[in-house]
């Protein structure tokens, strides 16, 4: 009986890991294939797409940790700090690569010109909204990182601060999702 339980446990672990790796690989190919698109800006597009998807995946994972922070249950702060540092770095890459691809968006005969000529509302409302909110997740996560490192393990004694960190993570995720969907819609409308 104990052997059976052990085998079941191993199978579940194997399937969970396989599912996570498969999902990540397939999701990343959504932007990774941009590297093979027939455009001079494939590098910018691929890099921004991969960093955005990675940031969203990491951000979504961190929302699960955020609810533990908000509920006040036991949490491994050591691991959370490093996951957050990773997510912050990916978000910075997303913002920097976003600036890079934004250059082509505004370039001569670029997506902006086409969108303004055909469906101006998508630029005037969606892009104008997206370009600002996409800058929010990086600093929000950086503040969460600062709080976790500054207060270190002593933060366990301050429920209000752990809740603040949880809310910062949730806000970062919200802006990530909004920016990601807006970016995807614009890329579908007119690719670089």
């Amino acid at each position: 009986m104990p052997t059976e339980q052990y085998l079941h446990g191993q199978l579940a672990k194997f399937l969970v890991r396989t599912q996570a790796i498969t999902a990540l690989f397939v999701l990343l190919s959504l932007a990774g294939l941009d590297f093979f698109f027939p455009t001079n800006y494939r590098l910018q597009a691929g890099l921004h797409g991969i960093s955005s998807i990675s940031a969203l995946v990491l951000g979504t994972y961190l929302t699960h940790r955020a609810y533990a922070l908000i509920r006040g249950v036991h949490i491994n702060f050591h691991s959370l700090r490093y996951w957050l540092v990773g997510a912050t770095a990916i978000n910075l890459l997303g913002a920097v690569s976003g600036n890079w691809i934004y250059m082509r968006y505004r370039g001569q005969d670029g997506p902006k010109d086409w969108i303004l000529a055909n469906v101006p509302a998508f630029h005037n409302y969606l892009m104008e909204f997206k370009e600002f909110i996409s800058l929010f997740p990086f600093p929000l996560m950086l503040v969460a990182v600062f709080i976790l490192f500054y207060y270190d393990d002593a933060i366990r004694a301050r429920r209000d601060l752990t809740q603040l960190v949880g809310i910062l993570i949730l806000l970062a995720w919200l802006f990530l999702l909004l920016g990601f969907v807006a970016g995807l819609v614009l890329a579908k409308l007119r690719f670089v």
Partner: protein
Amino acid sequence: MTEHQSTEEHSKPDAVEQATLFSGPAIAATLSLLLGFYTLMITHHISRLSKAMDKLIHSYGYWIPGSTGIGPDGSIGSFSGKETLALLAWGS
């Protein structure tokens, strides 16, 4: 009674730890972030007032590679200045 005593014993270090943990740094970090976001909004509206204002805002972002330029490769434009001013407000 024993349980009551042990709860008290546990709460003492927590109370001491809580007393030495100041909220200031967390509040400062969060408020500075909001100031950065606010600057982003204000500078955007200022840049929309006139071409001269847009150029002025843009000039703060000249240090960012790709902030100026024309042609198919484009440039970041005055958005680079808005980012710079927001960063300054956030960091200062």
